[in-house]
Every structure is written in structure tokens, then in C-alpha cells.
């Protein structure tokens, strides 16, 4: 309601709207291209388009390496999510409930992996793993991904905890619930959506990650690493089909996770 009071001028508003629409077109046209080409019959990517076809999708399901890489990606993400939740939720809890020396510094340092390019995180872990004789495997990729998923979980859960009215916990204790009962019955239900939302974000991010995995992959490729190697061997229309599926699935997951992370007013 208040918002209406400050408005750009008519002309300015139109110009901005036009600009924004162009920008949205710029953001989504490439994705549309990917999708459209995935249904194009022709084996080479040329304009104009030929017939509608699902054959590239069909081929995906007979590609053993590809299917294995998808399974690997699920394994990695399936490890990253519980790991980061197990570490991140208590950490967010500690940050919310306790003050300690260097807390502000810790909160900043914790976020560094979000700003540092993935290849640095990847090669840094690679160096440590090789020096300590830790064999590269899906576990090493999992650890690599956890380093940037962890701060995301902590940010989300920490923000939710800060909004959570602590007198509700006191009311629960007052009514005879122990601290453990209070956590399960009162605290957890109130931060549940933040936990689920960040878990889904972690899942999609881990699923799409390529730079860290690039350094930490041994023999088992994740899906993005498999795509990467396909790209090095030349473009095939299959990639468009994989791309379409991953992007559609990602967007579905994002819709769900944003719903969960949304602030309830």
C-alpha cells in the first residue's frame, strides 16, 4: 500500500518495464533454445529446425555411462545433504544461542567458500587428499561439495532461528517438557521448513556442481562431469535432452524449496 506512493514517472516506468522484459528474455531464451533443440530430429544443430522427435531422450536411457553418472550424482548429493544438515543445523543453533570470542569473524570466514571459485576449493582439497594418501572417490567429491553447501544450510537455518521467538521454548519447558522434548516438539517444527528448503537447495547445487568435482573425481563421474567430458568430445543433441531434464527438475526443486524458505508473515 505504502509502496504506491513512490513511483517512477510514467515514461520511466514504461522504459524500465521494457528493459526488464528484455532482460527476462535474455535470461530465458537460451534455456528455451536448449529445450527446443532437445526435441529436434536432426543430429546436427542447425537452423531451421526439422521434425519434432523424442529420439534423443530415448537414447539417454540406453547410455550406460550416463545412467551411472546420474546414479553417482545421486550418491554424492545423497551424502552431501545429510552431512551438511548434521553439521549445519547444530552450527546454526550454536551461532543463534551462544556468543563467543571471534564469532563475527567465524561467521564471515564460514562464507568464504561461496565467494571462492570452485576450482580453488577443488584443488585445495585435492592437494590435501593426495598428501595424506586419501584416495579420490565419490566421498572426496562429497566433502568438496559439503564445503559450499554447509554455509548455505547455516545461513538459512540461522536466519530462521533468529526469527523464532524463544519464549515458545520457555513456555514448553514451563509446561513440563524437557529440553530434548522441547527441541523435537517446538523448535524443530518451527525451523523444519528452513531445513527442508536448504536441503533441497543443497541437493540441486551439488547435483549441478562441476568445478570442485573436476579436481576430486577419480573414475566415477558425476552427471556434470559426464556432460563435461561429452562436451570435450563434441556437441551431441543428447546433451540438450539431458540439459532439459536437469533444468526442469532443478526448477521444480527450486519452486518447492523457495516455498519452504519463504517467510511466513
Amino acid at each position: 500500500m505504502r509502496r504506491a506512493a513512490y513511483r517512477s514517472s510514467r515514461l520511466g516506468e514504461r522504459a524500465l518495464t521494457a528493459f526488464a522484459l528484455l532482460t527476462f528474455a535474455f535470461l530465458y531464451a537460451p534455456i528455451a533454445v536448449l529445450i527446443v533443440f532437445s526435441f529436434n530430429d536432426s543430429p546436427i544443430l542447425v537452423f531451421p529446425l526439422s521434425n519434432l522427435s523424442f529420439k534423443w531422450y530415448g537414447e539417454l536411457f540406453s547410455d550406460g555411462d550416463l545412467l551411472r553418472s546420474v546414479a553417482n550424482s545421486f550418491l554424492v548429493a545423497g551424502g552431501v545433504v545429510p552431512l551438511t544438515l548434521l553439521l549445519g543445523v547444530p552450527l546454526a543453533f550454536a551461532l543463534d544461542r551462544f556468543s563467543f570470542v571471534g564469532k563475527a569473524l567465524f561467521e564471515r570466514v564460514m562464507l568464504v567458500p561461496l565467494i571462492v571459485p570452485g576450482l580453488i576449493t577443488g584443488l585445495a582439497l585435492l592437494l590435501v587428499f593426495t598428501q595424506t594418501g586419501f584416495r579420490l572417490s565419490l566421498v572426496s567429491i562429497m566433502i568438496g561439495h559439503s564445503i559450499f553447501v554447509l554455509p548455505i544450510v547455516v545461513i538459512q537455518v540461522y536466519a530462521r532461528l533468529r526469527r523464532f521467538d524463544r519464549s515458545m521454548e520457555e513456555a514448553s519447558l514451563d509446561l513440563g517438557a524437557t529440553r530434548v522434548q522441547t527441541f523435537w516438539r517446538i523448535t524443530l517444527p518451527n525451523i523444519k521448513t528452513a531445513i527442508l528448503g536448504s536441503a533441497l537447495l543443497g541437493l540441486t547445487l551439488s547435483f549441478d556442481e562441476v568445478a570442485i568435482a573436476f579436481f576430486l573425481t577419480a573414475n566415477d563421474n558425476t552427471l556434470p562431469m559426464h556432460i563435461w567430458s561429452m562436451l570435450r568430445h563434441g556437441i551431441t543433441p543428447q546433451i540438450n535432452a539431458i540439459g532439459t531434464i536437469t533444468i526442469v527438475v532443478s526448477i521444480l526443486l527450486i519452486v518447492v524449496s523457495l516455498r519452504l524458505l519463504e517467510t511466513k508473515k
Partner: protein
Amino acid sequence: MEPVVRLNRVSKRFRELEAVRELTLEVEEGEFLTLLGPSGCGKTTTLRLISGFEVPDEGEVVIEGQVVDALPPFRRNVNTVFQSYALFPHLTVFDNVAYSLSIRRRPRGEIRSRVSDMLERVGLADKARNMPSELSGGQMQRVALARALINEPRLLLLDEPLGALDAKLRRAMQLELKHMQANLGISFIYVTHDQEEALVMSDRVAVMDSGRLQQLGTPAEIFERPANPFVAEFLGTANFLEGEIEAAGAGRCRIGIADGITIEAEETPSLVTGDQVLATVRPQKIRLSLDDPGAPGAANTFPATLKEVIFEGVLVRLLLESAGGIGLEAQGLPDALPFAYQELVPGQRMSVHLPPEAVLVYPR
């Protein structure tokens, strides 16, 4: 008989700040005790010491004869109505009220009947399936009350439970709470910073300031005989006159104020001639008349200039200034004044009389 709760010289510090200092207090079975004091005086901290959310630095808290300092909140047979209500937003009204029963694993049938009874009692039977966010302030307040009472605690703590309600609902709830307390026979410790509320509801009132107990007594006692100027001011005394005792004896004392104004009051045994004192009078007790005495005349009567007339509907407030620049406030019901307040003009001279029995004297 053993009091329901006893605080024994309890102190609580937050770093440098002494939130509660050497507080000693007892609450009897079935008593309604109010903690009254300005913001930040330590009322909430006192409640939290009893409910177990704070642990005293010194002293002990005894509930039903048992020292509870080592007991966490969930092991104390005391329940609290929180100022913000602290209803669980993810549970229905029914489940909120049922919470402590379900924690104690009571059979389902028992839970259902007890919660329904309780909701009936607070007039919310039809809201059982609603979420707290769908309730009005007054309804949330009742849910909080029902939730705290379902356990039948011996002692209920209420931290400004009516603070968020509008004036009208507040008055209605004051009486409702009071009646409910009397019917249940549960002891209440009630926190408020509203002196009127304290007087209306309580059996006894504990007035606090800066963590210290200032006075403990019945509403009539603390209103009529405030123990010190702080209590007097907090309970609505507006007139403070600095003076010196000129003579004392035979149950009376005479206090020189300024420029020949002297006031007689009942003698306070500890005060002797020459002591610096503060004399106080409630605005309602001041008698006014329109004839100008010219100079200080009969005992406790002196002239003053009318500065301002403030009409508040049920009440008229008159601000006066007497010799020596002493400001006074008088109040009266419009119809009970010996003159028509509409005809008063600022600047006019009046005669002020302070009845000796209404003057309370404190050392300065």
C-alpha cells in the same frame, strides 16, 4: 502453614547490573500477589527466578518447602502465562492446551475431556480446532491461561498478561482473572506496572524499584500509607514539599516549608525537630476555596495562584503555584468541587488547605 513459594534474600546480577537484590518474599496458599514497579525494576527477573529460567546468584527459592535452585523449569510445579503469550504457532488451540498433558503421556480420553473442560471454562470451546494466528488478542490470552492452568499448578505466574489488550477488554479481563483465581484457589504472582490494575486485583502488592522490594502490603496499605516517597509517587502522589521539622510532639509535628508556610501533620516517631523532610499530599486530598486568604492563615491553609485547569472528563486537575514557587496539583470530581470549574480563570488567587491527616512525612 508452609507458604507456596518463598524467596530468601535472592539476588540476581546480569554482569554489573543487579536486576534483583536481596529479595525476600512469601506467597501464601490461594493468595493473589502482585509485583508492581516501573519498567526494568526486576519484575520479570523475579518471575523467572521462581519459574527456573534464571538461577539466583545468592539466596534461595523455596517452592512448597523444597529448595529448587537446582531444579530446571520442567521439574517445578509452577506455570507461567507469558507476556507475549508464546502460543505454539504450529499447534491448534486444542493441542496448545493439551501440550503439558501429552508431555506427561496422559491417556487420550483424559486429555480430551480435560482440555474440553478447560476450553469451556475460558469460553473458547468453539475455537479448539483453530490455529493461534486466527485468534484475537483476548482469545490468545485465554488460550495462554488455559494452557498454563491445565496442569492445576499450585502457583501461576503471570507476566503483564493484559499488557497487549485495549483498555476496555483489560478491565473485563482483570475481573475475570480475579474471579478465576478465587474459584480455583491457586496462588497467583501477577506482574504489572499499572498501579490501578495492582490495586484492583491483588490481595497483597509488592512494590519494587531497581531490583529492591520497596513495600509489601495490602492495596489499601500501600495506597494510604506508602512506606517511602518512591512508593508514594508510584501510586499517584503528585505533591512533594521539601521542608524542615520545626516542632514535634503529642502526636503532631509542624513542618516549615517556605516563606512562612507551615504544615501540620501526624507525628512520625523517627523524625525529630530539625530533620529535613519531604511532605506529600495526594492531589485528591487537597481542599480548595475561592476566597483569597491574602497570607498563610489557619493551620495548613495558604494562598496560591491558579496556573492551569485541565479537564479530563470524570476528573478536573488544577495546577497551582503558591508562595516560594511551590507547585501543587489538586484534583476533584467536577461535581464535587466547591465551585464551578468552568468559571475558573488562570491567574486567579485561591486558598489551599492540606488536611493534616492527609499529609505524609518522609525523611529527606
